[in-house]
């Protein structure tokens, strides 16, 4: 039986499932472009709207304005107050999600075929005609402030904030998008209205829809929903060079397990070497149980429950980050092992076997992502924001498979920079 399993392992050269997602590009009569997958088997639609810019569009001194604005979209719109809007949404069993990140604001909607028009009217009101009433502003402000206070005592959040501040300084990436107690406390209704005008705009819009809707229906629907958005938004931020000096710094916090964030400069999404770096990260710390960091830090030494690394190609800077948590008396060893693995991979690269395994994992796992209307809509919105072509899904695994051992080992030596790998440790670590 063991022999059979080993045989099974070695014959897997061609992986099975190809993702077959039939994407259409739809342009509405009013000129809004969307990617659509028709999937009539379940009577609902998943609609994903993204607006490039996100919290990085906060005006100077108004940190947290975009976040608070996004949180207020569902808190009263048109003639409905906060509770009225919630009741109407519940009655239709529509599900609207409003979120914001460093680089984009996102609105995710799911609504039933049977009441699609009514649901879309509610969604339109929240996007185009939010009320931003003082009473709602103050209530949601209290919620945001409670979240900020909690994050000040959360070791993971403390680590992120310290790492971002040191890496990005005054750039929007250098501070938490929720803002500070002071900045959020000082936001006025005018600030919220300005953020609304500056962030949710036509020129930054990306749309994806999956489900029980045709191309002919989608176009007019999008015009109805989004035609009244402002044409242009607030100025986008500049590119920023991460400042990473290779140090290990400690933020004292009295808790039994230290949390460490680490990182170096990353790889841009449109770099020719992106897929080599992606495979490299899979082998080093991104491949779950099969990564070197997991093997060395968890499996061999039992120093942590989890250690991970991930490429973070943001719009205005690229980072390569990782995280680990270990008891205060063990974190120093975990940091040493990670540094050693970073150096070993930079110096020696990877083996052909590791490369083949990482390719098998990445190419095999790729089709597994396209497993629901909601997830496909999110992926398609992301693809458009990254500027990927509409046939990308069919070609992506070929790009992974095209990376040679020579390529990846050149990238390992050029890209990995152990001297720049910077750690922030939050806790009461011994010997760090």
């Amino acid at each position, binding site marked *: *039986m*063991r022999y059979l*399993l080993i045989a099974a*392992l070695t014959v*897997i050269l061609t*992986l*099975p*499932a*190809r*993702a077959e997602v039939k994407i259409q590009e739809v342009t509405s009569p009013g000129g809004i472009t969307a990617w659509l997958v028709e*999937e009539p*088997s*379940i009577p*609902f639609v998943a609609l994903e709207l993204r607006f490039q810019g996100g919290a990085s569009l906060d005006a100077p001194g108004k940190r947290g304005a975009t976040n608070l604005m996004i949180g207020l979209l569902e808190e009263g719109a048109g003639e*409905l107050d906060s*509770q*009225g809007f*919630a*009741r109407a949404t*519940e*009655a*239709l*069993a529509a*599900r609207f999600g409003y979120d914001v990140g460093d680089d984009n604001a996102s609105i995710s909607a799911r609504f*039933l075929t*049977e009441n699609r028009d*009514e649901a879309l009217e509610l969604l339109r009101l929240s996007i185009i005609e939010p009320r931003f009433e003082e009473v709602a502003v103050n*209530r949601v402000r*209290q*919620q945001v402030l*409670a979240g900020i*206070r909690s*994050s*000040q005592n959360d070791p993971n959040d403390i680590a992120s904030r310290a790492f971002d501040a040191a890496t990005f300084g005054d750039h929007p990436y250098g501070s938490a998008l929720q803002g500070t107690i002071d900045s959020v406390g000082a936001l006025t209704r005018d600030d919220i209205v300005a953020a609304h005008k500056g962030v949710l705009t036509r020129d930054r819009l990306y749309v994806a829809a999956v489900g029980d809707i045709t191309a002919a229906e989608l176009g007019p629907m999008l015009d109805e929903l989004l035609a009244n958005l402002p044409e242009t938004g607030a100025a986008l931020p500049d590119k920023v060079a991460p400042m990473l000096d290779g140090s290990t710094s400690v933020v004292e916090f*009295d*808790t*039994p*397990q230290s949390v460490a964030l680490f990182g170096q400069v990353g790889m841009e999404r449109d770099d020719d070497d992106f897929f080599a770096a992606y495979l490299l990260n899979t082998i080093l710390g991104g491949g*779950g*149980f*099969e990564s070197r960091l997991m093997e060395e830090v968890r*499996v061999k*030494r*039992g*120093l*942590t*429950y989890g250690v991970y690394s991930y490429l973070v190609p943001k719009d205005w800077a690229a980072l390569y980050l990782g995280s680990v*948590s*270990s*008891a205060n008396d063990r974190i120093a060893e975990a940091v040493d092992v990670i540094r050693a693995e970073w150096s070993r991979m930079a110096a020696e690269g990877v083996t052909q076997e590791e490369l083949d*395994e990482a390719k*098998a*994992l*990445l190419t*095999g*796992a790729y089709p*597994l992502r396209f*497993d*629901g209307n*909601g997830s496909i809509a999110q992926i398609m919105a992301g693809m458009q924001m990254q500027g990927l072509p509409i046939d990308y899904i069919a070609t992506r695994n070929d790009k992974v498979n095209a990376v040679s051992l020579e390529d990846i080992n050149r990238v390992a030596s050029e890209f990995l920079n152990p001297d720049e790998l910077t750690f922030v440790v939050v806790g009461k670590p011994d010997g760090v």
Partner: protein
Amino acid sequence: MLRFLTLMLGLTLATSPVHAFEQVTDFQLDNGMQVVVIEDHRAPVVMNMVWYRAGSADEQPGVSGVAHFLEHLLFKGTDTLESGEFSATVAANGGRDNAFTSYDYTAYFQRVAADRLELMMKMEADRMVNLRLDEADILTERDVIIEERNQRTENSPGALMREQMDGVQYLNHRYGVPIIGWRHEMEQLSLQDALDYYTTYYAPNNAVLVVAGDVYPDDVRALAETYFGVLPPNPDLEPRDRPQEPPQTTPRRLVFEDARVAQPYVTRSYLAPERNPGDQSTAAALTILAELLGGGTTSFLNERLQFDQKLAVYTGAFYRGTSLDTTSFNVTVVPIQGVSLQEAEDAMDQALADFMASEIDEAHVERIKMQLRASQIYARDSVESLANRYGRALTTSLTIADVQEWPDVLQAVTIEDIRAAGELVFNERQSVTGWLTSPTSEEGSQ
């Protein structure tokens, strides 16, 4: 606006329930292993899950955490697989695997391309009976679970308080012991402890296979018979009659102080009945009661404490009916700054009393039922969540019929049922009230 509302009510009434279980097939192997197949042919992907009817509440006293420890150890070697080879094989086939442990069950799963199902089943059947462990496996993996406890519990004041609250709520039942284990017992877990649990509970007649995705029932049956059907059942498997709670006769309270608490809150749990085979109506009423009281923006507690009295930044009510033994109904209030936990608790008590004393809002109940009907449609977008729904139910004594009747049982709940459920559960003598606070907040001295 009125026309708008009327229009929507019309739609609500016109909606008929759409059942997700049309895509479900089930059968049993000769050795007693139950099999559920959930079809979804939209993508060439499958989820292979094996659920054991054994969790942390089935552990012997003194070895808390061993169910979860064993879950980790199942990724070590068998007679035919090296340590770590299971996950490496899944990855080499482009799949992802993991596992989880709860009070009443332990489950293992792989997500892979549908044509790799046979290999997954073969390996899963292998580790059901052929696990081979040595002392070296034990020592490092024990360090890993202790770091997991550090991460999930020791670093989180809220998790530490929940652990204390559960211990106080359950004096005799193992639901009072954390799934991850008490640290001092975890540090002593041995190879023999893990093997004892394994040989007691890991057998086909104590397992449920759930396969969800691009598969057909006949094919799954053939594979299941080939790989799981040949395994011998455990003839010594005992019924799951675990130590039960004595009647609770007095309210219990605790104050948990931790310097890391930034946002104090008050939370209350009441003992509550769970879903039982053929008898789910009380649990259904409690499910809707939790939604009415604390399920979202328009819930009773939210309208009262956030919108009207402006005392809270957050309120919530939770009920998890899918449980083998007596479960709990929870209510939580997070006060705004400047409002003490005593004021928050008083306001919570007054709101609960007022809720019970006043008419239940029928329109609100209808909105909740509409959302429950719609969730049957949305659920079909994720066979994984359907697979989890069946796995959880079938490992907590419920049947396939119970799972499939549940949506109708929810729709049949009346205003009177909700009131009766509230009267049953809101009994101060069956409650535990906890305050989470920091020594420096104004609560500390109270």
